[in-house]
């Protein structure tokens, strides 16, 4: 039904691209950058896409690491960890607010102080 040339072309495509595809997946996986660019918080009230880079970059909002990662001194900035290392998802008290409360306090207060950025739920949460 098909010429040998057509079958050979399809066969060659299948084999060559399979090899290239496997090598691409194995040898060139996408590496996460050392400092996050953007973070996606998956929460029931609607996911929040947080642009870490624009908050931290000098050309962006120019925040210092310690402005948000508040327990760190300047020489510890390179060791900054995820907020949920301390602020747990479900449990919290006055001394250690749970993650949602910590974020709401941190984000909304900062946005209010600088009179910039959203302060309403739908400004951050994808509802």
């Amino acid at each position, binding site marked *: *039904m*098909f*010429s040998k040339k*057509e*079958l050979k*072309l*399809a*066969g060659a*495509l*299948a*084999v*060559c*691209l*399979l090899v*290239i*595809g*496997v*090598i*691409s*997946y194995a040898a*060139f*996986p*996408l*590496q*996460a*950058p050392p400092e*996050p*660019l*953007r*973070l*996606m918080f*998956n929460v029931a009230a*609607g*996911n929040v*896409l947080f*642009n870490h*880079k624009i908050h931290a970059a000098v050309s962006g909002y120019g925040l210092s690491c310690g402005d948000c990662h508040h327990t760190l001194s300047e020489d510890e900035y390179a060791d900054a960890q995820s907020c949920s290392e301390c602020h747990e998802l479900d449990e919290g008290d006055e001394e250690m607010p749970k993650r949602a409360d910590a974020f709401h306090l941190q984000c909304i207060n900062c946005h209010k102080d600088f009179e910039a950025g959203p302060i309403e739920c*739908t*400004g951050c*949460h*994808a*509802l």
Partner: protein
Amino acid sequence: MLEKRDVLEQQTPLRQKKLIVSHAPFFHSGRTVTERSYHTMLAALPALLLGFYYYGMPAFGVVCLSISTAILWELVVNLVTKRTITIGDGNAAWLGMLFGMLVPATMPWWAVITGTFIVIVIGKQIFGGIGSNAFHPVALALAMMMLSWRSLFDFDAALLNYDLEFATIYPLAAVKYFGAASLDAFSLLDLLMGKQLGGIGSAFGLGLLIGGIYLMLRGFIRWEISLTFLAGIFATAFVFNLFDPARFAPPAFHLLTGYTLIGAFFLATEDSSSPVNFVPMLIYGAAGGMMTVLIRNIGAWVDGVILAILVINLISPLLDKIRPQALGKVE
């Protein structure tokens, strides 16, 4: 036993009782399915190349794996069902490439292989192979994948680790969740030039336009479907925008974002799942465009192209009932 007179009548057409009218002998144009498949792949290449430029080797890996596994799935089905080997027509390669163009660059390998399995086996071969499928195989596969693994198609989440030179938020998600005020981050020129998050080969508007125009001029796809699809999107988005400009994006935005252009030129126009008559083609395209915007603006999904195309595929046989009246009459 036949009488001598009957035998004579069969052998000599002039002695037939009725004059039999038939069409003229066929003339082969020289075009083949293979040529059509590879030309369609060529037309889609500009859009894909920009995807490789922005998303690098991971994107290249996704598309390579997608094309190769689509061909291999087709070969497996051919061998298992003991039918003619059909990989030579290039259709499986094209469907694999199209699937790769629609997914994000970070699609895991197992999802690509599962996706091409759905494209080839469930979307195409179960119906009987090329020309027999009721739905576009890639649209069907993508819809099934989106329903099964919705998070894989969240472009914002999938492309978190890419540092790109443009607004790194999926435009349709931005406008759906944060209203038309979020449109300031996007310029129409940027969207046209592919500076937007999206599938590997579905974000470069100009590339898709060039490919689509090439296919229309060569007669590989029908302009009636593509243009009415875009017109349907424009008109419906215009009405929504007129009704509430703070909530709904203007029509030009809808034309250049999401799967609009790849849907208009490469998905809606598939042969076996689209109508063949002129008026049905117009209705089919316009209905697809209208459904797309309805799903985007008031539906649960961020983009509506895939589901809208499945809906119009579904009504395609009904639309083809609208046909020109036959000349003459039967007594």
